């Protein structure tokens, strides 16, 4: 099961322990900013804004004393795909009337629109990866959960589910290694019974792959549910209730962090509105 080592090979999702302003910043602020930047990336077509977002994220990474190489390494796996897209675009892009040809190589015509489209696709991709990598590099899992709980605080008056939701996310993170352990166990058990679970799915054919999958997937899910019931019994035995819980270290926002939090809500909306108005005008 080589693919289980996936987590260790890519920088994406790794926490880098530096003691900087960005690491100490309230996780709620970071979540809001990441979410809003993703909204901007998907909602905006302007190359200038996409490029400036990239520059901002990289300068933030420098502020957090994260080696830019670390982020660039996460972009390596997508490089092949990018080349593939460029080739496809070159072959199938039809220049329209009001378009300026820049380079002409025999039948290949590289136009301004083509370059703009390509740059948009690639920039959007790189932006997204950079933001997510940066966020996971400066925020621990526990902090993320606390941040989510903080952001949902206004709703907790009405529903006991707010804490329950944060707790669910917390248990999810904790359970990932346990589920991987179960998976390895089942794979070994089925192989010892003569199943030929192979890594080379593409070459064994889809039907074969599905036949190999069934005796693997079902036991893994059932056993994991069984583990869940054990955990539930343990939580009940300790009288877990999701309402009225307190924390040893409560998350408190400074004045500055509150301003940043509200800016994180207001700024992207403003940018979206301005670009929308520009499009209409």
């Amino acid at each position: 099961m080589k693919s289980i080592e996936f987590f260790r090979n890519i920088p994406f999702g790794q926490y880098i322990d530096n003691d900087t302003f960005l690491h100490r910043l309230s996780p709620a602020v970071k979540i809001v900013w990441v979410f809003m930047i993703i909204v901007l990336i998907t909602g905006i077509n302007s190359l200038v804004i996409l490029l400036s977002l990239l520059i901002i994220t990289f300068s933030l990474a420098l502020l957090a004393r994260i080696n830019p190489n670390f982020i660039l390494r996460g972009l390596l796996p997508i490089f092949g795909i990018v080349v593939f897209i460029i080739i496809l675009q070159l072959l199938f892009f039809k220049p329209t009337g009001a378009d300026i040809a820049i380079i002409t190589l025999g039948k290949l015509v590289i136009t301004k629109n083509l370059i703009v489209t390509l740059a948009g696709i690639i920039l959007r991709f790189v932006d997204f990866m950079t933001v997510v990598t940066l966020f996971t590099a400066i925020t621990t899992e526990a902090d993320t959960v606390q941040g989510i709980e903080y952001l949902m605080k206004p709703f907790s008056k009405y529903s006991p589910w707010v804490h329950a939701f944060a707790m669910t996310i917390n248990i999810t993170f904790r359970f990932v290694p346990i589920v991987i352990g179960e998976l390895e166990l089942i794979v070994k058990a089925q192989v010892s019974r003569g199943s030929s679970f192979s890594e080379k799915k593409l070459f064994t054919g889809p039907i074969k792959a599905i036949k190999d999958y069934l005796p693997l997937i079902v036991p893994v899910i059932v056993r994991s549910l069984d583990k869940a019931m054990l955990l539930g019994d343990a939580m009940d035995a300790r009288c877990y209730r999701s309402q009225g819980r307190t924390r040893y270290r409560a998350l408190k926002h400074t004045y500055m962090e509150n301003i940043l939090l509200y800016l994180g809500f207001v700024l992207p909306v403003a940018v979206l509105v301005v670009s929308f108005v520009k499009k209409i005008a």
Partner: protein
Amino acid sequence: METKMVRTIVITAVLSALSIVFAVTSLGYIPWFGGISITIMHIPVIVAAILEGPIAGTIVGLVFGLTSLLKAASAPTGPVDLLFVNPLVSVLPRLFIGVVAWLIFTAFNGKIKPLAVACSAFFGTATNTILVLTMLGLTSAIRLAEVIGINVNAVPKTLIGIAWANGVPEAIGSIVITLAVVFGYWGITKGKAKIAKEE
């Protein structure tokens, strides 16, 4: 187990963890004819909806959507994956799988439980397939045409083709696996299953 809420929390959490593991190890995606892999990622969502109701289903669906978004962005397996770097395509449709699966399950839940579970699995899968492809067509028809290399007018036809080629095997797989899992789980809670006495 005494409290309903604790059970809901742990089951939702474990099924979300399963979704993450399936996505990361690419066990959740099986290579299929035509280059677009068929997925079993929606099965934990349907199981959660059947066992614990619509909220649990929606949360696991959210995890499914987010992993699919991150997977498309970090380790794309084809040019179509690029278009999934858009929460409207990858996250939003997945939130409805759980709700639909739960609605169908409660509607059919009578004396014949296997039928209710099977219908729920079928319609949950259909929700995933139809909504994702619809959103793909609505948000990025032009880019889709560019990426696959076809005319924009041929996009709806291609999407329907994908829906048949991938949706049918996904639905069959989902019915088989969901039935096995749900009845396995009901076996655990009644103490009939072998697995409960193992440890």
